[in-house]
């Protein structure tokens, strides 16, 4: 069964702080947007998830991401709001790709900014862990031995 072809949404073009998008993202641009939101920021933490070219002993050429777009974006927005409240962040950005991601390319970006480093680092860690548990996105690894949906890791 063919997965849908993902297209840029108007939201992505406006560079929203939270978005799903098929195209790669620029970490520099996301960090610039984060820094522009406040001059009180003393620490920024980032997490970039990348597509490995192997998994459980098999070569992986690419990963296909499927998502429930409306629910995924709503949940990502909720996560951002929760993180800002929980860790007293000045700002946070979450970008996740959908569609085909080649081995070596970026999958997800989490960027958090706070007055001090501890809050930024803790929030970044919390956000990626919660995203994996709560956001309806599924990945399928494409390998020479065939395709397989990934079972979530803790």
């Amino acid at each position, binding site marked *: 069964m063919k997965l*849908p072809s993902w297209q840029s949404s108007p939201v992505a073009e406006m560079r929203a702080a939270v978005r799903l998008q098929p195209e790669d993202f620029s970490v520099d641009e996301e960090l610039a947007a984060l820094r522009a939101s406040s001059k009180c920021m003393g620490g920024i933490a980032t997490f970039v998830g990348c597509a490995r070219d192997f998994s459980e002993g098999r070569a992986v050429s690419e990963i296909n991401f499927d998502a429930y777009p409306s629910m995924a974006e709503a949940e990502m927005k909720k996560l951002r709001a929760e993180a800002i409240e929980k860790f007293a962040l000045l700002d946070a950005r979450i970008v996740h790709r959908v569609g085909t991601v080649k081995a070596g390319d970026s999958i997800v970006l989490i960027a958090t900014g706070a007055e001090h480093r501890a809050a930024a680092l803790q929030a970044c860690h919390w956000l990626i862990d919660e995203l994996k548990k709560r956001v309806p996105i*599924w990945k399928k690894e494409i390998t020479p031995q065939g395709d397989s949906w990934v079972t979530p890791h803790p």
Partner: protein
Amino acid sequence: MIRVLFFGPVAERVGSRDMQMQFEPGITLQDIATRIQSEHTSALDIVSFIAVNNQQTRDMQLPLTDNDEIAFMAKFSGG
């Protein structure tokens, strides 16, 4: 009508990303699941989450309303 959505591994098992079902007064989430299972045996075995209109629920006796959107979802594996 009730719109039922499938994604990722569940869509692959069902062989479709969505289907429409006739709304009937009193119909529940369980009724929808039973209908799908009767046509696609074991397709819902990997379902861990169900959402009605973007809100997760575990209440299979939830009465549905016309134009509801239901998603049957496997465990998430994003990130």
